[in-house]
């Protein structure tokens, strides 16, 4: 599990446990010997207003923190030193350093990338939707983009660790979806 996945899982499990504890606690608090407040109101109007305001503020802060880290802005200001063309098809990947077309089917080409260089994957599909998912040597998903017919999605990435990276399909594309794969190396 990558650090990022681990963080997400732990965060989720903690939050889920918190919710469960609150619900169990409230459930146990109900019973015959309770205080019987008839109005059922916990907070007054001003308190509610502040609660809402705080919640909204928290959301916007969280959004403004995370949105700039979106993949669309990754290495936006730099220009890639390497371009890899990717064409997906039921049920294989073609990866090539040259544009893929009738003259260059791109299959069978071994792709080698350099550590730390900025790579741009230009990903498309020749038939249905596929998902270009990059997995590292420990089988962690590190980045992805969709392979869509008629469009080219550009994913920029810098590989810091050398090794063999796998490409798996992350959009259901038919019978052999689970075995549609490719790989490339980083030195």
């Amino acid at each position, binding site marked *: 599990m990558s650090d990022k996945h681990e963080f997400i899982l732990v965060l989720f499990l903690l939050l889920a446990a918190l919710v469960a504890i609150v619900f169990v606690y409230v459930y146990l608090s109900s019973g015959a*010997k309770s205080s019987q407040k008839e109005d059922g109101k916990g907070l007054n109007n001003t308190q509610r207003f502040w609660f809402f305001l705080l*919640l909204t503020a928290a959301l916007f802060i969280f959004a403004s923190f995370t949105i700039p880290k979106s993949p669309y802005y990754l290495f936006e200001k730099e220009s890639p030193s390497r371009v890899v063309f990717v064409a997906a098809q039921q049920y294989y990947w073609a990866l090539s350093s040259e544009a893929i077309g009738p003259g260059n089917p791109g299959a069978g080409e071994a792709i080698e990338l350099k550590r730390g260089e900025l790579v741009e994957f230009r990903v498309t599909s020749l038939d249905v939707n596929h998902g270009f998912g990059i997995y590292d040597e420990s089988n962690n998903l590190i980045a992805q983009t969709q392979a869509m017919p008629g469009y080219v999605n550009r994913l920029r990435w810098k590989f810091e660790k050398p090794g063999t990276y796998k490409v798996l399909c992350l959009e259901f594309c038919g019978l052999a979806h689970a075995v549609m794969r490719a790989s490339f190396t980083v030195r």
Partner: protein
Amino acid sequence: MMERTTLARTTSIWIIAILLLFILSVVLGIIMRLSQGGVISQSPVVFYSQMTTHGFTMIGIWFVAGMVGVNYLMQRYVSAPVKSNIFALLFTIIGVVLLWVTTFVGKFHTGWTFLYPLPFKIAWAGWATPLFFVSLTILGVGWLVWSVSLLMAIFKKYSITRALAWQHFGKNPSFETPPFILITVITLIGVITCLLAAVLLIVLFFAEYFSSGTFVNDPLLMKNLTYFFGHTIANEMLYLGLATLYELFPEVSGRPKWKTTWYVALAWNCTLVFILTAFFHHMYMDFVQPESFQIVGQVASYLASLPAAVVTVFSVLTLIYRNSIRWSLTNVLYFMGVAGWVIGGLGAVIDATITNNLVLHNTLWVPAHFHTYNAMGNVLFSLAFFNWAANRFAGIGESGGANRLKIALLLVGGTGFLLMFYLGGAYSIPRRFNIYPMEFSLAASFARIAAVFAAVYLAAVLIFFWDILRKCLKLLTYSR
């Protein structure tokens, strides 16, 4: 007293049909997990037709389950439609039968999202593609007529502004909109909008199918339309369940009815707007989509889910906290359902954050969170309503009978089953893989463990079914 109206009879037929289809679909789900775990071996065709059937049937039945509850409870406020309800029942049965024929006989297997242009890359019987769209059309027509007639029934008594509770934004509103009406109206507007999008989508598919190559669709537009429909329906059906919760939870608990206040009105009006733009989060990994849509997607995803959740959780918790509550199966199910909904929602909000989506999209994290707010949220809301209604139909009060056992089985089975999906997601295991590649050494074990827990969940469902069936049959077999 037994209730012998046509609406009650129709409702009980719906309940029996829904639970039967639910049991079959859970069995399909368990078979899929066994297959992914390598316990049984299935060809990809069989696996994926099964997956398509499971997804479609589940979405379909829990949508209609919400509609059934809302339609039934509506008679407390307005004159509730009965004809369109029966019409929808017939169309749903025909639509579902045709759908099962396309998937099981025709081997149609695009997944429930039938993402363009996959339905045209025919790897099944040639007739299955047109029949699939015909069955969707039948379901769409039945549901559209039904939801419009429900909305019209409300508008006959409440003006649009009052139905949306806008007078609550002013000082000292002279008129109070019941929360049930507010939530139902907000939800039905969303339902009708997304069903109309589905109609457009089907028309575009048919246009290309019959144009013999002269008309070709735009894949990005089709993807947006698909998720506008798919995401929205999957969310709105949960709100239908919540509408019944707002109506029944305080009542069954023996507490005063909830009132609409400015923040309740605000939260649900927010939901109306933002739910219709949150679907953009399904296209985060389509980098060609305009960036503004992506940001709208993230912000709307937060704003669509959180206010409604916070208001509901607040209302439910303050109703119970240190109060004397008449606990019964109905309100325990609603209570647990809210917890499940919130926990699934947290998983969803994490995934709706673009940077996380980069490493979670289309991994098992996705079925993890949506199964949480379905199997442990919405399903429990509907079971709560079913249980309440069945007791009413049979003319008996809330009864004991194996309640502890049912709840324990649901909780243990559901939690274990879901945890395996979350772990799978955290280990980057892709969703919709019929077999797991060697690299994912834990994937098959997760699937096997999940199958065991899902069987425990199924046991609870079977007990529910038996109990509710008996009560509903009592009404149906009662001779006039």
